[in-house]
């Protein structure tokens, strides 16, 4: 017995409201991030990640209030991603009660930002989010590149090398999303996940593509992920976090039940 593999539900929040509908039977307001976070906490979520997809920075303040309210009621680790561009953004989220922030585009634009943030706030709260897409053609050795802008903009940066560089710069964890799989419900890109997990010393969270509970199991067993993140399978009430954990436990994965 030892460290449990983690299940992390992810909420996409737009101007203070959870997008992608939620169908919890006894929640009146299906878009309220606080209510949904509380529900996941009760189901046994190991952490909760909020992804702020608010377009305008004026409205980002809303996210701060969401985090404040959740942190006063839910006593598990909270991560906030989206719009983290400078130290002041990190400070604001940590003060609101977030435990970690996920840095994505800002890391690509200015890698030293990760270094500075890790030195200032500690590696334990700096997650680097990586959106990767396979760029190798058939018959070529597998290769993935970093994409920004929701997978639209290629950067030419090799994903495995990038992950290693971010860890050297002080990232305490890697949140890895396969842009090829995101939203497809076909399961994680296991080869990508494994390549990154084997290349870095810090924990890796697999994301993108979960459609079944078996996909979560595969992410841990074949992808060698330390944690699995999923959104829609939990949002739409297909499965509870507890069901997911029981499925993992049944296949010999250590979880917190």
């Amino acid at each position, binding site marked *: *017995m*030892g*460290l*449990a*593999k*983690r299940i992390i539900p992810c909420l996409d929040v737009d101007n203070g409201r959870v997008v992608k509908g939620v169908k919890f039977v006894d929640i009146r307001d299906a878009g309220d991030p606080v209510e949904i976070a509380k529900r996941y*906490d009760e189901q046994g979520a*190991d952490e909760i990640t909020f992804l702020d997809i608010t377009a305008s920075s004026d409205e980002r303040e809303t996210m701060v209030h969401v985090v404040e309210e959740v*942190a*006063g009621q839910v*006593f*598990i*680790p909270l991560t906030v991603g989206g719009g983290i561009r400078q130290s002041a953004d990190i400070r604001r989220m*940590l*003060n*609101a*009660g977030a*435990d970690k922030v996920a840095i994505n585009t800002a890391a690509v634009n200015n890698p030293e930002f990760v270094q500075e943030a890790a*030195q200032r*706030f*500690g*590696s*334990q*709260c700096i997650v680097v989010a990586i959106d990767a897409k396979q760029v190798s053609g058939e018959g070529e050795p597998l290769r993935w590149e970093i994409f920004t802008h929701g997978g639209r903009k290629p950067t030419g940066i090799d994903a495995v090398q990038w992950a290693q560089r971010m860890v050297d710069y002080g990232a*305490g*964890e890697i949140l890895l999303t396969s842009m090829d799989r995101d939203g497809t419900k076909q399961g994680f890109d296991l080869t990508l996940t494994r390549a990154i997990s084997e290349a870095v*010393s*810090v*924990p*890796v969270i697999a994301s993108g593509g979960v459609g079944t509970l078996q996909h979560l199991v595969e992410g841990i067993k074949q992808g060698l992920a*330390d*944690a699995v993140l999923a959104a829609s399978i939990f949002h739409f009430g297909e499965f509870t976090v507890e069901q997911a954990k029981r499925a993992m436990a049944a296949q010999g994965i250590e979880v*917190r039940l």
Partner: protein
Amino acid sequence: MKSVAVIDYGMGNLHSVSKALEHVADDTRVIVSSKAEEILACDRVVLPGVGAIRDCIAEIQRLGLDEVIQQVARQKPLLGVCVGLQALMDSSEENDGTQCLGIIPGKVLAFDKNLHDPVTNERLKVPHMGWNQVNQVIKHPMWRNIPQDARFYFVHSYYVQPKTPEPVAASTSYGFAFACALTQGNVFAVQFHPEKSQHVGLTLYQNFLNWDGAD
């Protein structure tokens, strides 16, 4: 009314700690402070901490809080959390060697980056991050209503190694067994984060608010 001070030295998970204490403190006032007189006026004190230990110790000293913590450690219930535990030791390997407060004899060591599970040979990532089991090795009022081997949330790359086994209150296994909770008189300190450990964590804070500092 009873009171608990959360020492504010600019490093940390203060908000999480004070929110969790407020959640369980029915008849206790929770204050967050860096002022010696305010801290010393409280019935009990929490020393939180995250980040690099050199910065933590430097801030504690800059604010003149080292003497305050020493005094609290002699007089009233003191709870150290995460780097707040590590700060109580003699010294840490972190940041090329850092002198700590020397309240509990022992040192702080880094996890090997090449850590493996001795049974499965699975590679173990550093930081040790997530929910791991806390094996209580002594009976103690702080463990009241907390099941043996309950899972608490950890996130750390360094662990404490007390000079003697006497202070060890619990251990956790991550490639090997390390001390995750120490106690010495009216001092209790944990490596994990009770404020992020859901029900069992809140129970531990509840126990702290009820603890008179005796074994």
